[in-house]
Structures are given as C-alpha cells and as structure tokens.
C-alpha cells in the first residue's frame, strides 16, 4: 500500500502521465515474480485490464495529484458508477447511460451574477485549454479510485459569469429527463439531483470541471458532457451532467442532505475521524485492492484545502 509520506502531496509529472498500457505491462512483470498467495492478495487482485485507445482530446497540461498511486482502469471507471438517475445498481449507469443526449447541451446560469443566461457547453469550456489531472476519488461508501480527468478549473468557468458580492454559494443541478434517464421513475431522491459549494470552495484551484477522462470525452455514466470534480470531498459532491449553475446568497440544500441529514452534510469533506451511522469512514477500499487502506484527511489534499475550513468544527459541519 503506497501512502505518500515523504513526497509532496502532488507533483507535476516530469514526462507524461503513465498511460494505462505501460502500467499494465509493469504489473505483468511484477506478477511474473511468482508471488505467493498472501503477497498477491496484498496487490491489486481484481484490477481489470481493458486496453484504452489513444486520446482524442488535445491536452495542454498534465498534473498528477495522486503521487505514485496506480490509476484505475478505464473499464473500472466506466462500469462501476453511482448515478441514480440511471438506476441504483452500480452497473445500471453503464447499461442505460448511452441514451443520454449531450449535444446540444444548454446550461442555465442564474442568480447573483452579471452575465446570467443560457450557455452552450462550448461557451463554458475552452477546449483548447484542457488539462489532465489525476485525482483520488473517495466515495462515501468507503471505496476509492484514482482517475485521470480531463477538464478545466471550475474557477475559470465561474468567473466568466462575473458573480456579484451577493454570491456566497454556487448551486448545481443535474439533468432530470425521464425519457433519457430510467432511474428517475423511482423517487429514490427528490429529483433533480442538486449539489452546492461555498464560493471560496468553488474558486479553489483544485475544484475542477471535467469533460473527459483517460483523454476521451466523458461517457454518460461518468457525467457527460460536464461534471464537477471536488477531490477533497466525498464523491457525491462531484455532481454529474450539470444543466444549471445558480449563484445564491444562502447555503443551498443538497440532495443527499435533504434525503438524510444525519448521514450527509453540506460540506461532506473526506474525514476519517468523523464516521456516520451508516459507515465508518476510517478506511477505504481502493477499487482493485483486496485490503482496505487508511483514509486520508481531506482525501490527502489537506495541504491545499485545510485553510478553507480554519476555525470550523469539522465534526459539526460534516
């Protein structure tokens, strides 16, 4: 289990991010050593090895925010998803999300900002300035992945709308289209799915708007065409398939908090010290591993984001 101890918690890759093909062959070499059962179990027993085609996004800059932790495979990332609009089973989104129509993709921008209105995806995302960022993703269900996202910093998008001083929070909504999303028929949550961030969280350089992963445009199950990635918070904060951005003055209600306020809070920062009734959050299983690993405060991004919460009681504002 590799934990980042003596490394900076992030570094810019000297060359390029290791593509999955190389990483696979490295693993095959390791397996060639004829490890015993115990040692092999300690390694990545279940990692699926789907080959991945060459990128079709031009990527201007690549940054690795997950140290030397291994990437999860494209197959794992695109076949094991929580996206209840397509069904509550992990395999449902991959089964049904191909029906999602992402072109055209109008986004409604409302609230306390100078330039509100309806925008297209191309208005929001500068496809000539795409970055790759490798982040850990920690789900509240105590599993995690390492994912090479492609996208742009969220702050850059939000600044385009010139939010006013009254904009203290930003609120997002996912598409809720019954014809395309079979899961909406059951009221598992109060649709549409909604999430929110405090303005300073949203403007933080780590907050990211992804349009792709592994160099390719996002698939429906991962939140195509555009989804949030907030790596220091539990995965459900990283809202998918966004159709609405709303600048508001008061802390907005979020879907999971509305559903069960004692399990889910507005902040939902990854915090191994605050466990909730449903799960203990001290450890997590990296998808592909047999043994669990310790969960890191702020998912390992404390150096960068802890100052956002200075003086706050994180057990109270969970």
């Amino acid at each position: 289990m590799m934990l980042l101890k003596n490394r900076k918690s992030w570094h810019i890759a000297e060359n390029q991010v290791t593509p999955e093909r190389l990483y696979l062959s490295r693993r095959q070499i390791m397996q060639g050593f004829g490890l015993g059962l115990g040692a092999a179990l300690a390694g990545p027993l279940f990692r699926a090895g789907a080959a991945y085609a060459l990128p079709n996004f031009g990527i201007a800059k690549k940054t690795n925010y997950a140290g030397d932790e291994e990437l999860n495979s494209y197959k794992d990332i695109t076949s094991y998803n929580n996206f209840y609009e397509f069904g509550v089973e992990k395999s449902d989104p991959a089964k049904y999300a191909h029906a999602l129509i992402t072109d055209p993709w109008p986004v409604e921008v409302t609230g306390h900002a100078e330039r509100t209105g309806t925008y297209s995806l191309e208005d929001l995302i500068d496809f000539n300035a795409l970055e790759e960022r490798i982040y850990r993703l920690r789900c509240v269900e105590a599993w995690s992945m390492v994912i090479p996202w492609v996208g742009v910093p969220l702050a850059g998008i939000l600044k385009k709308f010139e939010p006013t001083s009254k904009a203290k929070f930003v609120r997002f909504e996912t598409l809720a289209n019954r014809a395309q999303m079979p899961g909406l028929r059951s009221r598992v949550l109060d649709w549409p799915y909604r999430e929110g961030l405090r303005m300073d969280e949203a403007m933080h350089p780590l907050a990211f708007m992804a349009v792709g992963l592994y160099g390719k445009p996002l698939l429906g199950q991962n939140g195509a065409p555009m989804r949030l990635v907030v790596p220091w918070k539990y995965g459900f904060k990283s809202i998918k398939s966004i159709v609405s951005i709303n600048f508001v003055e008061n802390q907005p209600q979020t879907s999971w908090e509305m559903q069960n306020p004692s399990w889910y809070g507005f902040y939902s920062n990854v915090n191994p010290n605050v466990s909730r009734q449903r799960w203990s959050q001290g450890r997590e299983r990296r998808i592909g591993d047999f043994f669990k690993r310790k969960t890191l405060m702020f998912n390992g991004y404390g150096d960068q984001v802890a100052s956002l919460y200075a003086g706050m009681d994180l057990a109270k504002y969970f």
Partner: protein
Amino acid sequence: MAWTKKTRKTLKWFLWIGISLPLLWLFYNWALLVDEGFNLGYLTSLGFHSLTANPIEYTNRFLGDWALRFLLFSFAVTPMARIFKVKQLVAYRRMIGLWAFTYVSFHLTSYIVLDQFFDWGEIWSDILKRNYMTLGMTAFTLLIPMAVTSTKGWIKRLGARRWKAIHKAIYVIAPLGAIHYFMMAKGNQLDPKIYIGIVVGLLGIRLWFSLQDKTKAAAGKATA
C-alpha cells in the same frame, strides 16, 4: 391427494438445485475472477466475471439479498401450504430454512473475511454501533439454535413443545432481516419496502389463520 414417492423426490431435487443456483453462480464468477486476477489462464475462454469492479461489495450484497429471499420463502411455506391446500409442502420447509441459514452464514462470512479481513476490532464496533448490523447479528444469532435443532433427533430430545418454541424465533428473524435491509437504504429505495411489505403480509396471514383456528376450536367446544 397423496403424492407418489417420485413426485416428492423430484420436487425435492428441483428445489435443492434451484436454491443452490445463486451460490453456484457466485462461486463460478469468483473462479473466473481469481483465474484472471492471478493470470492463471485456465478459464480465460469462459469470459469475464460479473462481480463488478468491486467484487467484495457485490458478493456481500448478493448473499444478503438471497439470504433474505430464502428466509422469507421458508417463512412462507406454512401459509402457502394452507392457502393452496398442499400439506405436503411443509415437508420441504426444513430444507429451505437450512438453505436460508447457509446463505446468511456465507453473507456473514463474506463480511468478516472479504470485507473486513478478520479485523475483529472494526467488526465488533460495526456490530455495536451500526443499528442495521446489530439487527442483522441478532437475526443470525437467533437462527443458530433453529439450524442446530432442525434434525429429527432434536425434535425427539426436546419434545414438540420446546422445539416449536425455539422455531417460533422465525417470527422475529424475518422482520429483523427485512428491517436490517430497510435501515441501510441510503435513498428512498423501493426494494427494502417491498420486503417489509412481504413480511407484514406473511405475519398477517399467520395471525388470521391462528384467529380462525381459535374461533373454530371454541365453536367445536361449544357444540361438543
């Protein structure tokens, strides 16, 4: 309506195989997974396993689901036999119940071995702290004496009355199993509610029957 020996045997095998299928399917998929994970290559031609990218979570849930289904199935045998007037069904209740116990045991084992890997501290605090797990463990504990005393020898040894008392535990276990599931649902899921509904229905039918029996018995006494 007497059943021939052949009918009884056929139904027995039919049930036995049917109930074991989910478990066989699970083992088969784990064989594919291990074969692929260790690059053994014996089973490559059979394709990829269906246990998702998180086989441990999938396995535990799969076993929990089937444990609950067979538990409720065994609980439904007596009322079904009465409603459809096929007394012979009661003869299969023990087998179905023991299979349900088997699934619950695998469910618990998958939690201890696969999910927690014998981290007893974590397991203990989970069972004490998380209400849904406290209930699950209670249900399992109550099932043990039922499984142990399921043989003819035990019925003789205990006497029918005491044996029946032990097996009345199912009236608690079935609701606990369904509530265990209901309490862990994160959203407003339908499935756990359906199971709760089934349990309530089965309890209701049994109550109805026992009330009917009582009035009949009372009427019988009055005319005698």
